[in-house]
């Protein structure tokens, strides 16, 4: 067992009675006739080094049983006719990962304060090494993510992939769409320049036009009757803590259901009918 050589001797699974080289077991049969040829130390070291990656994986796998899950997920069967349109969901996921990564690094330089937010963004864009690039990725990437979501949604709709048994995944997808739009809305205020300030004012006022709850929703978003210092901190907290957590959890559920239920064949492919032997075919001797 390659695996056993990696594990410290005291932790190894004990050999069954009558097996292995234990003191109580019988000596290997071939030992009686001729001693086995011993490989040189260098040879053994080389063999061990070659086996090391597999050994590490095996060590993890024995403790997590991850390969069974990963094999099932990565080598799952996809229907005939699967095409490039099926990659839009993965593309959206990629856009999200770009947003998450660039966002983490932007947070290292950004200051969510009404007096310093604009200056910190200017600092990122003008002074920080590759700052404009990372900020640009985040800024334009948000639009890319929204566009990809709608394309993905269109694919699912026109391919009829929202139908039984995948309705729940459609619902989760719609919640993901709403959360993504909230991300785009809250992120827009963060540079705190004239454009983002007034766009947020207008956006909050549109929220407020909902009857009965609208006015309270506006006050909740602004943390008061007017857009103020707390609004920015609030949008920042929603943008980088509250919604990303929900997004990651729901993306996990979304992917789980995709793997569990599989994907649908494109609508232009007819399902294969099982061939029914006709009386004549049997007479002709053809199956």
């Amino acid at each position, binding site marked *: 067992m390659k695996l056993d050589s990696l594990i410290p001797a005291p932790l190894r699974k004990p050999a069954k009675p009558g097996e292995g080289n234990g003191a109580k077991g019988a000596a290997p049969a071939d030992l009686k006739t001729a001693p086995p040829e011993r490989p040189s130390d260098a040879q053994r070291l080389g063999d061990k080094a070659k086996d090391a990656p597999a050994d590490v994986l095996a060590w993890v796998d024995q403790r997590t049983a991850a390969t069974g899950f990963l094999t099932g997920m990565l080598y799952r069967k996809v229907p005939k006719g699967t095409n490039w349109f099926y990659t839009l969901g993965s593309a959206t996921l990629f856009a999200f990962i770009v947003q998450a990564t660039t966002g983490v690094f932007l947070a290292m330089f950004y200051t969510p304060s*009404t*007096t310093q937010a604009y200056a910190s963004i200017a600092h990122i864009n003008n002074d920080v090494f590759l700052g404009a690039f990372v900020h640009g990725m985040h800024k334009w990437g948000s639009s890319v993510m929204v566009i990809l979501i709608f394309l993905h949604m269109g694919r699912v709709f026109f391919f009829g992939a929202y139908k039984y048994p995948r309705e729940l995944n459609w619902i989760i997808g719609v919640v993901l769409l709403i959360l993504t739009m909230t991300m785009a809305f809250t992120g827009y205020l963060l540079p*705190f320049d004239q454009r983002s*300030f*007034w766009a947020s*004012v*207008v956006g*909050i*006022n*549109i929220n*407020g*036009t909902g*009857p*009965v709850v*609208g*006015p*309270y929703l*506006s*006050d*909740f978003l*602004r*943390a*008061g*009757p*007017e*857009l*103020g*210092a*707390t609004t*920015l901190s609030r949008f920042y907290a929603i943008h980088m803590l509250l919604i990303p957590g929900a997004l990651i959890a729901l993306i996990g559920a979304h992917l789980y259901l995709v793997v569990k239920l599989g994907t649908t064949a494109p609508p232009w492919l007819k399902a294969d009918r099982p061939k029914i032997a006709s009386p004549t075919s049997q007479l002709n001797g053809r199956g």
Partner: protein
Amino acid sequence: MTRRRAFTIAAQGLGGIAGAAIVLPAVGFAVAPIFHRGKERWEAVGPVSDFVEDTYRQVVFTETEGIGDAGKTTAYVRRGSKQFGEDPNAMVAVSNRCAHLGCPVRFVEAAGNFICPCHGGVYDFQGKRIGGPPVRPLDQFQARIRNGQVELGPRYSVTSQLEPVRARDPGEFTGGVWEYLYPPRPSTFPPPSG
């Protein structure tokens, strides 16, 4: 009731209490600003002699403190006019916040109208809507005279008949049934009486 069931209920109950102990304060923390009304704030914008009754003078003052220039707002101020049945010794301060979506309107002297650059809202000399998408007249600010200085205070909204009501956000109708569909927010100040 078996012992097992009693313990199940007790464990779930304790879990619920522990969860509520975290969630309820957090939610309260987040929604508290809805119920909080800040301090009433008045700011002098110039001597009474600066203002006349037949046109507006533009003043800029701070409405929200702590966010620098972003917290400033613009008002158009004039004396009360007998032509509209107003007290000549009182001041009228019209907000430049469009009642459609909150863009800044400007007073166009030649036309005697307020015009919004965003979506073409038009208001007459008193701030009543006469065109475009706005849903009500322009907001006003409470105004008073102290030591010969005009001071502006909290914002309030008006109905289509210019009756004062509590401040509403842009896009929200005022008057009649709308007072219930867009209820006044606890964070706003009571309108001036009369």
